[in-house]
């Protein structure tokens, strides 16, 4: 196959590209330029969008011996990922931009362009495993290394996208990949992993959002409606957040308080005890299925945030655009906007975007 290897400049995508070559594919390396101003995004080891990262990707491609180009996806990234991120926070939700980038950029804009240019597939350094089922459908499973598993951020991919995807690292641990990078003479073998959000240079999401959105004053209240303090913008808070609330006076019972609810129109942020964060019912919109959509309620597990725990659940399709998820193990800190990825064992079944949560009955009273 003719394969585009998306190369971020990190160790994972470099080894993925090398393995794609070894598997006999005709591989071309592509670094995605996602920032309109390459200097504005995080530089060095922490991100994936800087000039240094483009240079690291180029050197990896040299070492592997494949052609290398930079594709400018900055307009698409700004429209589909950054704007969406801002809009979601403005609406009081908590988006996952990495998932969005996979759905709209890496396995959409990039894949479409690759196909049009005569390529057959896109290979990335994501940790997830693809298997072909008996009927020929492609199944996506969690990576062997559950600690590195990235199937959650790939849970939005459809069968058509999965058929054109290669994840050469899914069957290995990070340590194996790093050792292999070293053995292959890749200069990025010891480059630190990237974390956080690539377009927020210093990792200060709240600061970045307040710069973009300006002050939108509101109140922090407790569950009885007592005003605890004013704040500069509800987008600085996330459901489940405990740190940085700066409430001054402790709660009556002296226990720590958490963000329970964010009301986007008034900007009111409600805080309360941890128990009140517990949620047992979710409603999701925009369901996406890796294969056919289920007709019966699914007994399954769900994951509700990147690197989050699995919860046993029953998922019911309400209509074409809505799912109801009943959690057998209640979860806390669940925010609308996050993705609910549905698993059958290690296999990804599909996903939805959380639109509404219901707290467990005991906590509601």
């Amino acid at each position, binding site marked *: 196959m003719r394969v585009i290897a998306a190369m971020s400049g990190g160790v994972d995508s470099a080894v993925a590209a090398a393995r794609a070559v070894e598997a006999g594919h005709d591989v071309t390396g592509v670094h995605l330029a996602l920032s309109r101003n390459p200097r504005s995004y995080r530089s060095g080891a922490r991100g994936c969008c800087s*000039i240094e990262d483009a240079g690291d990707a180029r050197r990896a491609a040299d070492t592997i*011996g494949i*052609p290398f180009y*930079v594709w400018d996806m900055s307009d698409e990234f700004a429209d589909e990922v950054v704007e969406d991120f801002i809009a979601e926070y403005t609406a009081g939700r908590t988006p996952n931009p990495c998932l969005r980038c996979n759905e709209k950029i890496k396995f959409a*804009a990039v894949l479409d*362009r690759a196909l*049009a*240019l005569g390529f057959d597939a896109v290979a990335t350094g994501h940790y997830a495993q693809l298997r072909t089922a008996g009927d020929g459908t492609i199944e996506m499973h969690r990576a062997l290394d559950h600690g590195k598993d990235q199937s959650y951020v790939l849970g939005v991919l459809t069968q058509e996208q999965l058929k054109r995807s290669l994840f050469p690292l899914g069957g290995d641990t990070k340590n194996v990949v790093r050792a292999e990078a070293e053995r292959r003479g890749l200069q990025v073998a010891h480059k630190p992993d990237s974390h956080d959000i690539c377009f927020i240079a210093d990792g200060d999401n709240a600061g970045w959002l307040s710069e973009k959105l300006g002050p939108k004053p509101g109140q922090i209240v407790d569950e009885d409606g007592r005003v605890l303090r004013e704040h500069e913008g509800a987008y600085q808070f996330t459901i489940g957040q405990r740190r940085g609330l700066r409430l001054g006076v402790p709660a009556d019972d002296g226990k720590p308080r958490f963000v329970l609810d964010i009301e986007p129109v008034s900007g009111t942020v409600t805080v309360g005890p941890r128990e009140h964060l517990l949620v047992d019912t979710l409603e999701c919109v925009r369901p996406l299925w890796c294969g056919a959509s289920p007709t019966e309620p699914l007994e399954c597990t769900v994951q509700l945030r990147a690197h989050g725990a699995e919860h046993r659940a029953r998922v019911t399709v309400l209509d074409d655009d809505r799912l109801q998820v009943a959690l057998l193990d209640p979860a806390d800190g669940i925010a609308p906007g996050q993705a609910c990825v549905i698993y059958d064992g290690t296999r990804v079944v599909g996903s939805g975007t959380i639109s509404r949560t219901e707290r467990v009955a005991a906590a509601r009273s």
Partner: protein
Amino acid sequence: MDVARSYLDHAATTPMLPEAIEVMSRELGRVGNASSLHASGRAARRVVEESRELIAERLGARPSELVFTSGGTEANNLAIKGLFWARRSPERQRIVFSSIEHHALLDPVTWLAAHEGARIDVTPVDRQGRIQLDALHDAVEQNPADITVLTTMWANNEMGTIQPIREVVELARAHGIPVHSDAVQAAGYVPLDFTSSELDAMTVTAHKLGGPVGVGALVIKRDVTPTPLLHGGGQERDLRSGTVGVALIAAFAKALDVTVARQAEQASRIERLRQRLVDGITRLVPDAVVNGDPHSGHDHRLPNIAHVTFPGCEGDAMLMLFDAQGVEVSTGSACAAGVPQPSHVLLAMGFDEIAARGSLRFSLGHSSTEADVDRVLEVLPAVHERARAARLVRGGTR
């Protein structure tokens, strides 16, 4: 991987001439700092000075007018920053330059504006990429006394459009304004005569005409004294300190000598190749548009550049597809990270961003053959078809 390469990017850099490689290899084997007083030093100095005399002769300049630099970028920086610093006063802060200059000139100018208080005055160009003399006239006459330096490239690097240098000089001369021209792309492809051009300063570089990368020169009149960028041993009239690169300079001289001797014959040979290329492109892709001045010649266009817009395509997709077929071309400029940027030259010529992104530069040189051109034409239909499909997909995702 094993496809034969057809190199059509001579405007980026052109292969070294065998004669220049031979001279350079020989000189690299010798010891001697041209500033040393002993026999080896004198021998090195002799090579430098003989090279200087040869280059000067081939450029219609005096040997004492040549200041060797590391290349075109440094020569442009020396000319622009140096003359700005030497001539500025509270009443004199302006730099007049064209909108289609290479980054090696544009960036020093914008840096001076951002950090040194320069006022910048951009001369517009027409649709062919030639500066508008009436606008330049107005810019000069508005207040001739406040101009520190005026600069217009001899020929544009993306379009090949040759600028009316004689007329530019004419406009400035009456007021004693120093005029500089970046002749990096023109040298070797059209005759250059520094003295009769009446320029005050002119930039040339070796690697665009068959010499090595890493050496160039600012040709500058003796009575024009820019402030140096580099201070040190006082080499090159005190204008460019640093041990001179004997082997580089010797190879530069050889390359220029050979190139100028063959200039007329090569220009007509290359122009024929270009015509073959352009005819083929417009036959195979009827909506392709060849930009710049359609006429070749000393007052029109360099013989070796064909700049083409392919409507509905992205230049970087075509570049990649051509590359996979062994054909090497350019989209114009890319930023440090390698991201293709819409060319400021095309935008200045009145192209919109989409057309600017959908263009390629094919540039020929001394080693180009009919086979190179035919290879482009052989793969063009498939490349074009795929690039157009990719552009449509991209439009759909936006």
